[in-house]
Protein backbone atom coordinates (compact mmCIF):
# COMPACT_ATOMS: atom_id res chain seq x y z
CA UNK A 1 0.00 0.00 0.00
CA UNK A 2 1.30 3.45 -0.91
CA UNK A 3 2.56 5.84 1.77
CA UNK A 4 -0.18 8.34 0.97
CA UNK A 5 -2.76 5.68 1.80
CA UNK A 6 -0.97 4.98 5.06
CA UNK A 7 -1.06 8.71 5.85
CA UNK A 8 -4.79 8.83 5.26
CA UNK A 9 -5.46 5.77 7.40
CA UNK A 10 -2.99 6.93 10.03
CA UNK A 11 -0.87 3.83 9.92
CA UNK A 12 2.65 5.13 10.01
CA UNK A 13 5.47 5.42 12.52
CA UNK A 14 4.74 9.14 12.75
CA UNK A 15 1.17 8.45 13.82
CA UNK A 16 2.31 5.98 16.46
CA UNK A 17 4.83 8.52 17.78
CA UNK A 18 2.04 11.04 18.32
CA UNK A 19 0.53 8.82 21.00
CA UNK A 20 2.62 9.62 24.09
CA UNK A 21 2.36 6.23 25.77
CA UNK A 22 3.10 4.35 22.58
CA UNK A 23 6.10 6.55 21.91
CA UNK A 24 7.27 5.95 25.49
CA UNK A 25 7.05 2.17 24.92
CA UNK A 26 9.14 2.52 21.77
CA UNK A 27 6.61 0.73 19.57
CA UNK A 28 7.70 0.49 15.93
CA UNK A 29 5.38 0.39 12.93
CA UNK A 30 6.03 -2.73 10.86
CA UNK A 31 3.38 -3.18 8.21
CA UNK A 32 -0.12 -2.37 7.06
CA UNK A 33 -1.46 -4.62 4.32
CA UNK A 34 -4.93 -5.84 3.56
CA UNK A 35 -6.75 -5.24 6.76
CA UNK A 36 -3.91 -6.03 9.07
CA UNK A 37 -1.72 -3.64 11.03
CA UNK A 38 1.51 -5.03 12.49
CA UNK A 39 3.78 -3.39 15.06
CA UNK A 40 6.86 -4.39 17.05
CA UNK A 41 7.61 -3.82 20.72
CA UNK A 42 11.41 -3.84 21.09
CA UNK A 43 12.71 -5.71 24.09
CA UNK A 44 13.78 -3.17 26.70
CA UNK A 45 15.03 -3.84 30.22
CA UNK A 46 12.63 -1.37 31.81
CA UNK A 47 9.64 -3.28 30.39
CA UNK A 48 10.58 -6.46 32.25
CA UNK A 49 8.13 -7.81 34.83
CA UNK A 50 10.40 -10.19 36.69
CA UNK A 51 14.14 -9.56 36.76
CA UNK A 52 14.86 -13.26 37.44
CA UNK A 53 13.25 -14.37 34.19
CA UNK A 54 13.82 -11.24 32.11
CA UNK A 55 10.34 -11.63 30.62
CA UNK A 56 8.49 -8.53 29.37
CA UNK A 57 5.60 -7.63 31.69
CA UNK A 58 2.12 -8.58 30.58
CA UNK A 59 1.03 -4.97 31.06
CA UNK A 60 3.36 -3.78 28.29
CA UNK A 61 2.02 -6.40 25.90
CA UNK A 62 -1.55 -5.52 26.88
CA UNK A 63 -0.90 -1.86 26.11
CA UNK A 64 0.57 -2.71 22.70
CA UNK A 65 -2.35 -5.03 21.90
CA UNK A 66 -4.86 -2.36 22.97
CA UNK A 67 -3.14 0.14 20.70
CA UNK A 68 -2.69 -2.08 17.66
CA UNK A 69 -6.36 -3.07 17.91
CA UNK A 70 -7.18 0.65 17.84
CA UNK A 71 -4.89 1.11 14.83
CA UNK A 72 -6.86 -1.57 13.02
CA UNK A 73 -10.03 0.48 13.53
CA UNK A 74 -8.35 3.55 12.07
CA UNK A 75 -7.38 1.54 9.01
CA UNK A 76 -10.80 -0.07 8.53
CA UNK A 77 -12.84 3.10 8.98
CA UNK A 78 -13.42 5.37 6.00
CA UNK A 79 -13.07 8.55 8.03
CA UNK A 80 -11.03 9.65 11.03
CA UNK A 81 -13.83 9.23 13.55
CA UNK A 82 -12.74 9.36 17.16
CA UNK A 83 -13.26 6.24 19.25
CA UNK A 84 -12.32 4.73 22.59
CA UNK A 85 -11.83 1.19 23.89
CA UNK A 86 -15.04 -0.27 25.28
CA UNK A 87 -13.67 -3.58 26.38
CA UNK A 88 -10.52 -5.58 25.90
CA UNK A 89 -9.90 -9.23 26.57
CA UNK A 90 -6.44 -10.76 26.45
CA UNK A 91 -5.62 -14.45 26.80
CA UNK A 92 -2.00 -15.25 27.55
CA UNK A 93 -0.96 -18.56 26.08
CA UNK A 94 2.67 -18.51 27.01
CA UNK A 95 5.25 -16.11 28.40
CA UNK A 96 7.23 -14.11 25.85
CA UNK A 97 10.85 -15.30 25.46
CA UNK A 98 13.21 -12.91 27.23
CA UNK A 99 15.54 -10.60 25.31
CA UNK A 100 13.43 -10.84 22.15
CA UNK A 101 11.05 -8.33 20.62
CA UNK A 102 7.31 -8.94 20.60
CA UNK A 103 5.24 -8.41 17.46
CA UNK A 104 1.53 -7.70 17.46
CA UNK A 105 -1.01 -7.44 14.70
CA UNK A 106 -4.71 -6.66 14.65
CA UNK A 107 -7.59 -6.79 12.19
CA UNK A 108 -10.98 -5.13 12.47
CA UNK A 109 -13.42 -7.80 11.40
CA UNK A 110 -16.68 -5.94 11.84
CA UNK A 111 -17.72 -2.36 12.10
CA UNK A 112 -21.19 -1.00 12.80
CA UNK A 113 -22.09 2.67 13.13
CA UNK A 114 -21.41 2.58 16.86
CA UNK A 115 -18.98 -0.27 17.48
CA UNK A 116 -15.84 -1.75 15.95
CA UNK A 117 -14.91 -5.38 16.63
CA UNK A 118 -11.23 -6.29 16.48
CA UNK A 119 -9.04 -9.31 17.01
CA UNK A 120 -5.32 -9.11 17.71
CA UNK A 121 -2.38 -11.42 18.29
CA UNK A 122 0.97 -10.93 20.03
CA UNK A 123 3.77 -13.28 18.94
CA UNK A 124 7.52 -13.56 18.59
CA UNK A 125 8.70 -16.06 16.00
CA UNK A 126 5.38 -16.97 14.42
CA UNK A 127 1.73 -15.96 14.65
CA UNK A 128 0.98 -19.70 14.74
CA UNK A 129 2.73 -19.84 18.10
CA UNK A 130 1.21 -16.78 19.77
CA UNK A 131 2.11 -15.24 23.10
CA UNK A 132 -1.37 -13.75 23.48
CA UNK A 133 -4.72 -13.35 21.73
CA UNK A 134 -6.81 -10.24 22.06
CA UNK A 135 -10.41 -9.37 21.32
CA UNK A 136 -11.39 -5.73 21.63
CA UNK A 137 -14.44 -3.61 21.02
CA UNK A 138 -14.30 0.12 20.43
CA UNK A 139 -17.04 2.70 20.60
CA UNK A 140 -17.16 5.69 18.28
CA UNK A 141 -17.34 8.81 20.41
CA UNK A 142 -17.90 11.69 18.02
CA UNK A 143 -18.02 12.76 14.45
CA UNK A 144 -14.39 13.67 14.09
CA UNK A 145 -10.97 13.08 15.55
CA UNK A 146 -11.18 16.43 17.33
CA UNK A 147 -14.31 15.54 19.25
CA UNK A 148 -14.06 16.58 22.88
CA UNK A 149 -16.49 14.02 24.30
CA UNK A 150 -15.09 12.40 27.39
CA UNK A 151 -17.80 9.97 28.41
CA UNK A 152 -18.56 6.77 26.56
CA UNK A 153 -22.07 6.43 25.26
CA UNK A 154 -22.57 10.21 25.34
Amino acid at each position, binding site marked *: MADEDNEVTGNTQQFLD*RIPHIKALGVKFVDFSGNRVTVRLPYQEHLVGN*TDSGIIAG*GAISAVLD*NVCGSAVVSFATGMRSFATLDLR*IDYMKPARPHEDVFAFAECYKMTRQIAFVRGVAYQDSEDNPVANAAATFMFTGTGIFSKKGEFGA
Partner: protein
Amino acid sequence: MNFHDRFKAMKASGDFSGLADALPYTQFMGMSVEIVEGRLITQMAYNDTLIGNTVLPALHGGTLAALLEAAALFQIAYDLETEIMPKVITLTVDYMRSGAPKLTRARAEATRVGRRVANVRAEAWQDNPDKPITAANINFLLS
Protein backbone atom coordinates in the same frame (compact mmCIF):
# COMPACT_ATOMS: atom_id res chain seq x y z
CA MET B 1 19.21 -9.69 45.70
CA ASN B 2 17.24 -11.43 43.01
CA PHE B 3 13.50 -10.88 42.62
CA HIS B 4 12.48 -14.17 44.19
CA ASP B 5 14.48 -13.43 47.36
CA ARG B 6 13.19 -9.86 47.55
CA PHE B 7 9.63 -11.12 47.28
CA LYS B 8 10.30 -13.78 49.93
CA ALA B 9 11.70 -11.10 52.25
CA MET B 10 8.58 -8.97 51.75
CA LYS B 11 6.38 -11.90 52.66
CA ALA B 12 8.40 -12.51 55.80
CA SER B 13 8.37 -8.88 56.92
CA GLY B 14 4.86 -8.01 55.74
CA ASP B 15 6.23 -4.81 54.17
CA PHE B 16 5.13 -4.72 50.54
CA SER B 17 5.75 -1.03 49.95
CA GLY B 18 8.74 -1.86 47.72
CA LEU B 19 6.84 -4.35 45.57
CA ALA B 20 6.15 -2.08 42.60
CA ASP B 21 9.78 -0.94 42.60
CA ALA B 22 10.98 -4.56 42.43
CA LEU B 23 9.51 -4.96 38.95
CA PRO B 24 11.21 -2.75 36.36
CA TYR B 25 7.98 -2.37 34.39
CA THR B 26 5.81 -1.20 37.30
CA GLN B 27 8.58 1.14 38.38
CA PHE B 28 8.77 2.50 34.80
CA MET B 29 4.98 3.01 34.88
CA GLY B 30 5.18 5.07 38.09
CA MET B 31 3.31 2.52 40.17
CA SER B 32 3.52 2.19 43.92
CA VAL B 33 1.83 0.09 46.56
CA GLU B 34 0.45 1.12 49.92
CA ILE B 35 -1.70 -0.55 52.53
CA VAL B 36 -4.73 1.53 53.47
CA GLU B 37 -6.97 0.17 56.23
CA GLY B 38 -5.69 -3.35 55.60
CA ARG B 39 -6.27 -3.22 51.83
CA LEU B 40 -3.54 -3.05 49.24
CA ILE B 41 -3.89 0.02 47.03
CA THR B 42 -1.83 0.21 43.85
CA GLN B 43 -1.36 3.71 42.48
CA MET B 44 -0.12 4.98 39.16
CA ALA B 45 1.31 8.48 39.37
CA TYR B 46 0.43 10.80 36.51
CA ASN B 47 3.02 11.30 33.82
CA ASP B 48 2.62 12.78 30.32
CA THR B 49 3.96 9.48 28.90
CA LEU B 50 0.76 7.74 30.03
CA ILE B 51 -1.45 9.73 27.69
CA GLY B 52 -3.24 8.01 24.80
CA ASN B 53 -5.48 10.74 23.46
CA THR B 54 -3.80 14.15 23.49
CA VAL B 55 -6.99 15.95 22.45
CA LEU B 56 -9.27 15.07 25.40
CA PRO B 57 -6.66 14.45 27.03
CA ALA B 58 -7.03 10.91 28.35
CA LEU B 59 -4.84 8.14 29.73
CA HIS B 60 -4.03 5.39 27.25
CA GLY B 61 -6.31 2.38 27.79
CA GLY B 62 -3.28 0.13 27.89
CA THR B 63 -1.91 1.92 30.97
CA LEU B 64 -5.16 1.23 32.82
CA ALA B 65 -5.11 -2.43 31.78
CA ALA B 66 -1.54 -2.59 33.09
CA LEU B 67 -2.49 -0.91 36.37
CA LEU B 68 -5.37 -3.32 36.97
CA GLU B 69 -3.19 -6.31 36.11
CA ALA B 70 -0.55 -5.08 38.57
CA ALA B 71 -3.12 -4.37 41.31
CA ALA B 72 -4.55 -7.87 40.90
CA LEU B 73 -1.13 -9.51 40.83
CA PHE B 74 0.06 -7.64 43.92
CA GLN B 75 -3.14 -8.43 45.82
CA ILE B 76 -2.97 -12.13 45.06
CA ALA B 77 0.75 -12.25 45.84
CA TYR B 78 -0.03 -10.54 49.15
CA ASP B 79 -2.95 -12.85 49.97
CA LEU B 80 -1.42 -16.22 49.17
CA GLU B 81 1.23 -18.29 50.90
CA THR B 82 3.14 -18.89 47.67
CA GLU B 83 6.58 -17.36 47.09
CA ILE B 84 6.20 -17.67 43.34
CA MET B 85 4.43 -14.90 41.44
CA PRO B 86 1.25 -16.19 39.80
CA LYS B 87 0.86 -15.90 36.01
CA VAL B 88 -1.98 -14.13 34.22
CA ILE B 89 -4.07 -16.44 32.02
CA THR B 90 -6.84 -14.06 31.00
CA LEU B 91 -7.53 -10.40 31.50
CA THR B 92 -10.85 -8.75 30.63
CA VAL B 93 -11.02 -5.00 31.00
CA ASP B 94 -14.13 -2.80 30.86
CA TYR B 95 -13.58 0.87 30.12
CA MET B 96 -16.24 2.96 31.78
CA ARG B 97 -15.02 6.50 31.97
CA SER B 98 -12.18 8.37 30.39
CA GLY B 99 -9.02 8.52 32.52
CA ALA B 100 -8.00 12.10 33.19
CA PRO B 101 -4.35 13.20 33.37
CA LYS B 102 -4.06 12.70 37.13
CA LEU B 103 -3.21 10.07 39.73
CA THR B 104 -5.08 6.77 39.35
CA ARG B 105 -5.65 4.31 42.18
CA ALA B 106 -6.62 0.65 41.99
CA ARG B 107 -7.69 -2.05 44.36
CA ALA B 108 -8.29 -5.73 43.79
CA GLU B 109 -10.05 -8.57 45.50
CA ALA B 110 -9.72 -12.30 44.95
CA THR B 111 -13.22 -13.52 44.22
CA ARG B 112 -12.28 -17.17 44.12
CA VAL B 113 -9.05 -18.93 44.92
CA GLY B 114 -8.79 -22.56 43.91
CA ARG B 115 -5.79 -24.85 44.01
CA ARG B 116 -4.59 -24.02 40.51
CA VAL B 117 -6.49 -20.92 39.48
CA ALA B 118 -7.47 -17.68 41.20
CA ASN B 119 -10.02 -15.20 39.92
CA VAL B 120 -9.47 -11.57 40.89
CA ARG B 121 -11.56 -8.51 40.27
CA ALA B 122 -9.85 -5.12 40.16
CA GLU B 123 -11.09 -1.54 39.84
CA ALA B 124 -9.34 1.72 39.11
CA TRP B 125 -10.61 5.17 40.01
CA GLN B 126 -9.45 8.75 40.13
CA ASP B 127 -11.70 11.14 42.06
CA ASN B 128 -14.21 8.74 43.54
CA PRO B 129 -13.72 5.05 44.39
CA ASP B 130 -17.44 4.50 43.79
CA LYS B 131 -17.10 5.75 40.22
CA PRO B 132 -14.41 3.52 38.74
CA ILE B 133 -12.96 4.49 35.39
CA THR B 134 -11.95 0.94 34.55
CA ALA B 135 -12.61 -2.54 35.96
CA ALA B 136 -11.12 -5.93 35.17
CA ASN B 137 -11.49 -9.62 35.85
CA ILE B 138 -8.23 -11.53 35.84
CA ASN B 139 -7.62 -15.25 36.05
CA PHE B 140 -4.25 -16.33 37.43
CA LEU B 141 -2.50 -19.66 37.20
CA LEU B 142 -1.06 -20.54 40.58
CA SER B 143 2.11 -22.59 40.90
